[in-house]
């Protein structure tokens, strides 16, 4: 099961999907496009713990994190 984690005021909300099934991937890609078009940044973790920012949907990613647009504090 792959996960999309979206940061929000309650901590985060999660969308689980099966990345071996086409409908799960299609829904995940739709969510990816929805959040990135709203200005969210998407990031994935590699096996070694390194974090990479992504701009296109990665169907192989086990965990994708979305955080809202950054603003100066």
């Amino acid at each position, binding site marked *: 099961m792959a996960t999309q984690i979206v*940061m929000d*005021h309650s*901590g*985060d909300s999660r969308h689980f999907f099966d990345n071996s099934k086409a409908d799960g991937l299609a829904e995940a890609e739709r969510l990816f496009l929805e959040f990135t078009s709203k200005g969210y940044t998407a990031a994935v973790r590699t096996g070694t*713990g390194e*974090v990479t*920012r992504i701009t296109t949907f990665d169907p192989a990613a086990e965990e994708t994190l979305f955080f*809202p647009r950054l603003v100066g504090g």
Partner: protein
Amino acid sequence: MKNVSRRAGRWSLRSLAVGKLYQAAKDEKTGFARSLRLLRSWLSPQQRVQFDTKGYFDVVGCDTGKRYRIRRGMSANVHEIDEYGRLGTGRCFVPLGGSPHGDVMLAQKIALETDEARALNIANSFPGPVTWRLPRLSSERRSSVRSLSTELGQSHQ
């Protein structure tokens, strides 16, 4: 002197209490606790140890290679670190929408590690903590200062 030590004691007590609060929140189901758990799971092993023991973690900017320290907090909690490990200029940037502490720190970490230039462009800067140091005097100057203070002491007697 007494006031200084009393103030230092109060600060260490306060940081101890904040540390305990973070520790207690680990197992809770609040947004605050969930955000801390998410943060810990995305930190590198070294950063996780540093965060658990010291309450902050260091990240390396992907563009300049500069080191930054992210402390617990929601604003004004990011500082540059120089080669001696001293805190420098502060950077203030947060995700839009009032996220809990852990989420803010995680967003700051990812932004600096993956898109430092943009994060710094967005961030507001503020001066780092002021450190007071006694000036280093040369031996010549030190002896002249000493003789001057001796003279002044004698004239007062």
